[in-house]
Structures are given as C-alpha cells and as structure tokens.
C-alpha cells in the first residue's frame, strides 16, 4: 500500500538511516484485533454448544470487567508513550484500605471512594515523577509496584480481608437489566473514555504527546500536564478494577496485586491494538484485547492445559505482537 514515499530516503549503502516512522495504520492492522476476536468467538461457538448465548457473553464480560478496566487505564499511559507497571499493586492497596474501612464498620460508599482515591493518589505520584522529575516511566512504575505490592503483603500479613458487609457485595453483583453492575461500570467507563480519547481536546493532546512530544510542546500543548494526568488516570482505573474485583471475590487481599497481572494487562492492550511505542490505541482496543485474553485462558482451562503453560503462551504472544508492531513501524 503506497501512498507515496516519505522524503528522507535511505541514501547509500553506507548510510542506512533507519527511519522509524510511527505506524501507518492500514485497514487490516486497524481491524486485526476485532477480526481476531470474532474468529475466536466463532471457533469457540463451534466447539461449545452454549457459547454463543447471551448469558454466556454476559458471563464472559463479567469475568473480563476488572482486567478490561485496568487495560483501559494502561492504554491511556501507553498512548502517551510511557508504561505503567504498577496497576495491580495500586489496585490491591486501594482495595485493601477500602475493605479494612468497611470491616471496621465504615460506610460502603465511603469505602468505594477510598478504593478509588488511594490508587489515584499513587498514580499521581507516578505522574509527578515522570512529568516533573523526568524519571523513566518503567523504572518509576516498577518501583511503585514493588512498594505497593510489598505494602499490601505487609498490611494484611498475607491474609485476605473477607467478611465484607452484604450491602456491598450484594449491590455490586446485582443486575441492571441483565447486566451485572461491574459490566455496566465497564460499559460506562469504556464509553466515556472512548469518547474523550477520540473526540475531545484532551484526547488529541494525549495522542499528540505520545506521537511526538517535541512537536506537541512547540505547538503549545501542556505536555507535563498531559503526562501527569495519564498516570493519575491509570491509578483511577486501577481503583475501579479494585472495586469490581473486591465485590466479585467478596474479599480484598495481597494476591490481587501480584506481578503476573501486569503481563495480562499489557498483553490485553498490545493484543487489542494499542502500540507500546505510543500514539496509537483506544479504550475499545483495550476492552477487545482483554476479552481475547480472557477467552484464550478460558479455552486453555477447558482444554485442560495447565495454567502454567498459558503463562508461557502469553509471554510468547506478547513478544510476537510487540515485535510485529516494531517491525511494521520500521518499514
């Protein structure tokens, strides 16, 4: 597909200048994740009688909801050209504080607020480090994950906090029409974020910053604020995921903040079409990717493939997807 050649040529054999052009999204690459999703659904429907039913779809969405929300948060950060490795830890800590508050007799509504506030503040710390202090995103968030993961273990002594007030668990798992509350949260959040990313000024700022931060700055975009916001937002999304997960598990504990969750989040984003290098990706991408990941692990489960091998496969898939993205950008 040639729309014309870019101006900077590869000159002579001795002067191969690798021009890393940000990806040109051809039709195929844009819809690949969706096609993949449809393919997976089609295959599964063939082999599993009850798969193609509304109930099952809703159940899959419920299962995916927490991961999808986290992937949406990660997407915002990836779009700006950074990365957030601390989402599970932030989520766990927020959930734990909220759960502890509820157990101590606090109002569930306030508990939810805590579950959202704490990760947002932690995300803000990430954001400040990256935007103001120019620290490297993966280093900062790696450290944050270490701290929050460790703190979660420490505070809870490795014991999950259960026995949460019924009003919390019951409400969170209730259904609006046929959709459980977490799925509704996912839809609402997803729709709002998608709208904002694709249609608002701020969304433009995010994509511009991730595509070329220098051009953005010269054009008057407040890139520092943009970066700060992206990481704080990621924290907020971690918070939402924490609320959802706590409700579904009816408990909050340190295992929620395990490092392996990070791989799931990044794989979801990458598979869904979000580019690790920045400037590309929407909330819809994140959700599609999360669904695909969930379905694949369900499949592995049902085919009695050990959980461990799924890890191997996931690791390999992530690498392949990112390699392809990098390769495409170099052409």
């Amino acid at each position, binding site marked *: 597909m040639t729309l014309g050649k870019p101006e900077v040529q590869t*000159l002579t054999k001795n002067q191969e200048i690798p021009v890393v052009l940000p990806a040109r999204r051809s039709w195929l690459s844009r819809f690949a994740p969706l096609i993949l999703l449809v393919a997976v659904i089609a295959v599964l429907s063939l082999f599993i009688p009850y798969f193609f039913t509304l109930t099952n779809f809703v159940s899959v969405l419920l299962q995916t909801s927490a991961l999808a929300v986290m992937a949406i948060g990660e997407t915002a950060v990836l779009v700006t050209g950074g990365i957030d490795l601390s989402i599970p830890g932030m989520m766990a800590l927020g959930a734990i504080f909220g759960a502890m508050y509820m157990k101590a007799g606090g109002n569930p509504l306030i508990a939810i607020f805590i579950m959202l506030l704490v990760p947002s503040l932690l995300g803000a710390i990430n954001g400040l480090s990256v935007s103001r202090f120019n620290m*490297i995103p993966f280093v900062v968030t*790696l*450290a944050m994950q270490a701290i*929050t993961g460790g703190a979660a273990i420490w505070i809870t002594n490795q014991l999950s906090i259960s026995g949460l007030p019924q009003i919390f668990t019951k409400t969170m798992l209730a259904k609006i029409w046929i959709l459980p509350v977490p799925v509704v949260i996912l839809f609402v959040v997803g729709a709002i974020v998608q709208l904002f990313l694709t249609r608002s000024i701020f969304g433009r700022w995010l994509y511009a910053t991730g595509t070329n931060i220098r051009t953005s700055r010269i054009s008057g975009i407040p890139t520092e604020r943009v970066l700060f916001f992206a990481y704080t937002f990621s924290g907020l999304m971690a918070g939402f995921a924490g609320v959802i997960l706590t409700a579904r598990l009816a408990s909050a504990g340190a295992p929620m903040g395990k490092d392996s969750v990070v791989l799931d989040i990044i794989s979801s984003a990458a598979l869904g079409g979000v580019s690790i290098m920045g400037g590309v990706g929407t909330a819809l991408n994140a959700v599609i990717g999360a669904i695909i990941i969930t379905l694949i692990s369900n499949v592995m489960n049902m085919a009695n493939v050990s959980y461990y091998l799924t890890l191997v496969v996931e690791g390999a898939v992530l*690498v392949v997807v990112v390699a392809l993205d990098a390769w495409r950008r170099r052409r």
Partner: protein
Amino acid sequence: MLSKEKTQSPFNLRDFLFTYGFLIVLVAVVIYFSAAAPNFFSLNTLILVLHTAAPMFVLASGLAFVIMTAKLDISVGSIVYLASAVGAIMISRMHLPFPLAILVILMVGALAGAINGFTVVVLKVNPLIATLGTMMALRGLALQLTNSMVISLPQNLRTLGNVRIGGIYVDIIIALVVLLIMNLVHTRTPFGRQVMAIGNGSEVAERLGVKVNWVNFWAFVLSGLMASASSILLLLQLGAVSPDAGSGYEFSAIATLVIGGVSLFGGEGTIIPGIIMGGFTLQVIQAGLNYIGASVYAYPFVRGGIIFVAMFADALKVKVKPRVKMITDEEPSLPKVPPGNEITPA
C-alpha cells in the same frame, strides 16, 4: 609552544558521591540496627549476612552487564527458578550426578539469556517487554515442570550448602571468586569496556566501531548464565526449590545494583566494590529488620521503598551530569543526516 599541562583527575565531589554515597547510608543503617538490637553488630551476624547474600552477589554480577548497556532484564528471577527446578529434578527425580546437573543448570541459564538477547537484538523488541514476556513464560514453564511443588535435594547435598571452612561459609568464597572474575571481565576485557561504551551511547559506540548488536546479545547471555549460577548456590543453601523461588529477585538485584552505583541509564558503575556494597547494604537491612522483630512482610515494602529512593537519586544524578554541548551545526538531530547530504537546491 608545547603545552606542559598535566591534568590530574581532580577530586570530584560528584564522582565521590556516585561511588560511595550509599556507603554512608550503610554505615548509618548499621549504627541504627546495632542500637536497636544488641547482638547485631557481631562477626557471626556479618558472616550470616554474607552467606545469605552470596547468591544475590552472583546474580547481580551478570545483570550488571545488561544494565550497564542501559537496558533491563527483569527475567532473572524466573531464570533462577527454572534453572534450579531443572537441576533439582535432575538430581532428585532422575538421580543424575551433581556435576552434570550443574552443567545443565548453567546451560539453561545461558539459553534463556540467548532467547532474551535474540528477542531484543534481532527482533528489536523493547527490552522491558521482551524480558517481561520471558519472565512470565519461563516461570510458567518451571511451574509446569515442578507441578508447583517443592522439590527437595537428597540429604548429602543439603548439607553441602552450609559447609564452612574455618568458620566462613564456602558459598561466600565462591561468590567472591565469581565477583572477582566478573570484575575482571568488566574492567579488563574489550567486551566489558564495550559494554560501558554502549551505555554511554549506542550511536557513538557504533561510530567508534563497536559491534553493538554482538555485545548486547552476549550481555543478555551473561545475565542469564549468572542467574543460573546463582540458582545453584541458592538451591544448595535452601536444600530445595519451591514455587516462589526467585520471585522478586529482579527487584532485589536491581536495588543491589543501583545502590552500588550502577546507573540504570547505563555507562556507570563497578562490580567491585559496587555490588558488594549494594548487596551487603540490602542484606543488612533485611537481617536488621529480622533482628528487631519486624514482620516478615515488612521487607518487600522496605525494599520497594529503597528501590524508589535509589532510582530517584539515580535520575537526579543524571540531570546533574554535564553533557558535552558543542556549538555545532543546526542539522536535524534525528534521523541523523550526515553533513552535506541535506537536500539543498542547486
């Protein structure tokens, strides 16, 4: 006419802090813990601390090479698990001789490192993502092999891990020897020097004729190899391999290196005394926490905090480091068009 200036390397406060900053911290830490727990500051404690830290010394000495090229390898913890799992299985289940098991363990590590190297250098995948993928995949593989169970070593090997010679644990000596060798490779081989050169700047190194891809690849192999070597020491010490082996190791290793002066931005740092100081400091803090009766779970949190502070300090150091600025041409900075090749009209 001929200038006779002799420029001596001036005493530089910044360079001093770079290398010895955390030594000051270490001293402070030791003082604190000695005050808090009377038996802390004794020879016995010291030896025990070194004994526990020995595997980490070995691990960090390999990872250092990757970090010095300004890249990351976060799969080392999983390599430790996989390598020791393979070894343990070979010994206890397949009853193969110990020396053979050691050989296979080392090969596993080197192979894992080679996979990382391939993914980063040939497939040109971001090192973080590449080693993230390996981290998970290798752990999954190891869990599969062990079925997530603990595998113990036979009795005779278990005692081997805690052998002392003249009061000093053998593995401390082994670790020291490894560190000496790694230090030699770092400071006295072209490979080691070129690793540092790449950390100063890949493009500059390339211009100077360094085979950047080759060096990067072997740095990853070395990291994997040392990870598996450290797993041998760990395996012997613990006498068994359990499903959470090596988990969090990458954090401790990175903390060790950063504390010891190896910058994550590449091109800085030493194996000796850097890793010794970094590993020792970290281990002292853990031991100290133990002694004052802090909860076992406090340690990951403290460690995370240390990493954060260490990385923050690292980032600040880089800001202060003066980059050479020349009043040069106004050519675009990237992609680099060599002077004369701009398209200008006739």
